[in-house]
């Protein structure tokens, strides 16, 4: 049933590991370094998608469909999460007229 999955034999699993590792790191850097909230949201999406890639690669490698099912869960939750994030951002934009992270410094102590 999953025969077509095994045709990826030409690309070793290491390549997928490296690729998703690099994508994940780019995402982390984006969240840590960028000041724009929308870019930060995109970086978080990038991290999630690199994990998705990892799941799919492992699932193909192991010949097991569970990983791919999990990817659907992740996609669903990521969509919900980003919706909430954008809603929070809209709320902030209404109050401050800015999408910059620098206004987040009122709470200190």
């Amino acid at each position: 049933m999953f025969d077509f999955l095994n045709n990826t034999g030409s690309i070793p699993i290491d390549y997928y590991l490296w690729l998703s590792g690099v994508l994940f790191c780019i995402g982390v850097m984006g969240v840590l370094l960028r000041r724009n909230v929308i870019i930060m949201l995109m970086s978080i999406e990038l991290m999630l998608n690199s994990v998705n890639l990892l799941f799919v690669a492992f699932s193909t490698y192991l010949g097991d469909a569970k990983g791919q099912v999990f990817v659907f869960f992740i996609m669903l939750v990521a969509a919900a999460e980003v919706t909430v994030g954008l809603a929070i951002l809209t709320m902030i934009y209404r109050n401050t007229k800015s999408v910059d992270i620098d206004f987040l410094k009122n709470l200190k102590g």
Partner: protein
Amino acid sequence: MGLVFLLSEKNMNYASKYKEDVYGLMIFSTIGGLMLLSYANLVTLFLGIETLSIPLYVLVGSKKSDLKSNEAAMKYFIMGSFATCFLLLGMALIYGAVGSFDFREIALQCYTDAGRVNSLFEMGILFLLFGMIFKVSAAPFHFWTPDVYEGAPSIITVFMATVVKIAGFGALARLLRGGFPDSILFVNFLWIIAVLTMTVGNLGATQQKSIKRLLAFSSIAHAGVMMIAVLAVSKASMTNVFIYLLAYSLATIILFTLFMHFADKKGLSDISSFNGLGKTNPFLAATSTLALLSLAGIPITAGFFGKYYIFYNAMNQGYIWLVILGLLNSAIAIYYYLGIIIAMYFKEPVEMKSETDDLPFLHKLVIAGCAIGIILIGIYPNRLMMLF
């Protein structure tokens, strides 16, 4: 267990236009918490965490026009989803090493051929723990806690400090009891986290003037103590964690109820709002003293037995130094808890006005109930032990 009961107690005075939304989201969040207390599969763990967190992001920002609340929501959201990514990365690596999400299968697989999968699996566990540690606000990832606790509406802060905390530690305890081999990496890592969390929490709390931030730091410190319980994995440690959490939650509810009342009435949010409470309102002063003593771990309160069982268990498992450091930290904690008690009994009140009549009956009932709970657990801890 105990979770829904705690929630229903606190849903009382949210003075906002969006009342029904808030209750609905709280219930969603609680369902996530219940999932976290009873999962046996990594998929359920992930879904539980997200069901718990996503409504919380909204709840933290539910004071729409208040910039502080907005800021807290944004911080919590960014940090929360960042941690979720690490959690997922950990799960992906574990899945790659073992080929399953089920706890029993994972435990079996990693025992049998640990040699082959070792490094990938250990990396996975490490990332998974990063994610979980964030959720329970332990030391290296605690920075969001004081800000979010301060910025969120008070009732949501209570919710976060009790229900979310219980769920987070329940999940962590289940994860560690799930039958993973205690590789050296794992234990040393948690050891450092536990000590760091306690110390940072307690030292941070001594610096605070605002009650909300003080309670946030004290909750970080308590997270450290619970990390000890989680670390000394044994059959008893689940019970210990729950007794401790119950004691902590009861005391926190009392203090926050009082705090909300003061913030409403006097518009004060620092420790001076407790000044002279012993004279103006002996009932509230007595109950909050009880709560503070319980948090500090003084005998005949619930907090004492919570700490006692945790340290006793850790001693039996051979973590002597951890216990010593834990006790030193408890001493620091007593310093700032007693600061509030001193303010209540030995300082002059800000304004001589009786507060008794203003406090709604329901709030008094909650406070009295929690106080009775603290004393009962403190006197008959065995009864509670048998329940679990």
